């Protein structure tokens, strides 16, 4: 039985893009201070409400802080979320790994990050029988601070592929102003679509590229992030 598509969980984008097919990988590009992280959290919240599982790879917030942030969202269920914390160990936090939070040694430790993603895929898909899984990485930029583009490309090549074969939805955030155009266009090749954010004056806009024959119109995000 074919899986139905994934809604992103951002009403204005879902209106124009519609449900995306299982196995889709999306790059979410936004300038610093934009609502990129808020959008990613909303996409996670939407998954909770719809009983999907979430694998959250955190490269800039320690796992326990992320749990605090996610905890109050409706539908939050520890059984359906797995966090790969890439930052705690480098901050000297030595708390042991749990089912909820797995620790990679550092953002350089792509091997370790990969092992933990695979564990969660196995856990959700095979053991818990959850077939809809969202893989969220809050910032590729942190990974790119420590590893060169070739290395990151190889890593993403493998894990966007895994997302595809698991019929999951991959959502990867990246800062637009931290990387040159060539880096971004290299990375874009690995994704089925891009969600772009921009700030003009005190307003923030979003559009989707690659889902429809032409990029969608820029639409206004409401104050404080998504809607």
């Amino acid at each position, binding site marked *: 039985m074919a899986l139905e598509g994934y809604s992103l969980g951002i009403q204005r984008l879902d209106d124009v893009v519609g449900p995306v097919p299982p196995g889709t990988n999306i790059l979410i590009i936004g300038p610093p201070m934009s609502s990129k992280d808020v959008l990613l959290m909303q996409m996670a919240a939407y998954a909770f409400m719809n009983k999907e599982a979430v694998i959250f790879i955190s490269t800039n917030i320690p796992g326990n802080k992320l749990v605090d942030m996610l905890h109050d969202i409706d539908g939050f269920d520890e059984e359906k979320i797995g966090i790969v914390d890439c930052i705690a160990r480098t901050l000297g936090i030595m708390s042991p790994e749990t089912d909820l939070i797995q620790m990679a040694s550092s953002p350089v430790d792509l091997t370790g990050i990969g092992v933990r993603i695979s564990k969660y895929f196995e856990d959700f*898909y*095979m053991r818990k029988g959850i077939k809809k899984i969202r893989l969220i990485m809050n910032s590729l930029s942190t990974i790119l601070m420590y590893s060169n583009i070739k*290395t990151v490309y190889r890593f993403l090549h493998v894990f966007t592929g895994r997302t595809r074969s698991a019929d999951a939805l991959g959502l990867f955030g990246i800062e637009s102003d931290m990387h040159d155009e060539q880096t971004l266009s290299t990375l874009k090749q690995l994704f089925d679509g891009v969600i772009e954010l921009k700030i003009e004056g005190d307003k923030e806009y979003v559009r989707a590229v690659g889902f429809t024959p032409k990029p969608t119109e820029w639409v206004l995000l409401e104050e404080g992030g998504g809607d």
Partner: protein
Amino acid sequence: MLETGIPKLDKLLGGGIPRGRTLIYYAYPGVEGKVFGMQTLYNHLKKHHSAIFLTTSCSPTPLFKELKEFGWNFFAYLGEKFRVIDSYSPFIGTKDELGIPMDETEVIESYTLHLLREMENIGEPTLVVVDSLSTIMDLCGEYETLEAVREWNRYAKIHEHVIVYNFTAWPYSEDVLQELKENTFEATIMIGGIAERVIFGQYFGLLKAEWTPAERKSVLFKVVRPGGIRVYVPKIVVTGPHNAGKSTFIRALSTEAVSVDRLGTTVALDRGHVEYKGLSVDLFGTPGQERFDPLLKIIGGEAMGVFLVVDSTKSRDFVRAKQMLESIKAYGLPFVVIANKQDLPDALSPEEIRERFSLPRNVDVIPTIASDGVGVFEALERLVDRIMEDGINEGGV
């Protein structure tokens, strides 16, 4: 012989690694390859031998703290006989007092300099563990690293050191991967994942060892804390319609079998354990009646593979068998169809059954007469091969 600390692997290697030889743990992304090198290192230190460790993706202090989960206390061995070269801390601009900090971490000569110097300073044949070669390649370039590794290996050979490399096979250039797998080291251990839609099991196997004939066999493993690498016995489910011969099939295969029968049919669970040609397999039978479907769900969820047993004479049961096949496919599990009761008149041939089930050519339909034990072991070997080959062929995952 230097033992790896993984008994099954030492056996495949003919006892371990001889002096002056090099070995690569060649792991596919997403499987736990790192533990192999660390287990080999700890096993060696535990015997109070000297060792050199190069860490490239984590500082020594947090790494050794983390490894305590395995029951390994690396701190206890630090000193003249256990030297740690740390390229990670200088790379991210921090300090870690346990290691010898390396400068110029993006220049391959710097690795060569440090490794050769420590090998010389330690003053006796030793074990060097590099974790990991892939990070060095990421930082210094694939070809430059490959060239340097050849030099390190030559040096090790002359001075009778053993070098063990952890490596993650990201999609590097095909020729580099080939070179690493086939020609650069005296032994190559493949570490891969069994995958359908997701990886749900891990295996290791000996691809080559120049000092001993390679047995092309894969061993399933799990990583346990504490403990490390443990050989894992897969769970295979035997399912099929009512009275297809599932219990007979399990009994024909098993060295030990238990079944709960009432009025000649299985109402609860069959279990069997097979020891055959170095395979160690647990079999779990499911009752054929529809009311037991939730049980199939529970058992199927943790299985590594499935036998679907059908009575080749009862085409009226094929609808039920097809339903069962659909639920197996939903779990994404490797499976083999058993065309049982081939000795009876009117039995359909495996090919006819393949057609009725609309199965593609790559699915095995094995003819058996379970009551006489005919074909059952062929079927077992085939299914175990299928479970393994998904990971081994085409570079797996």
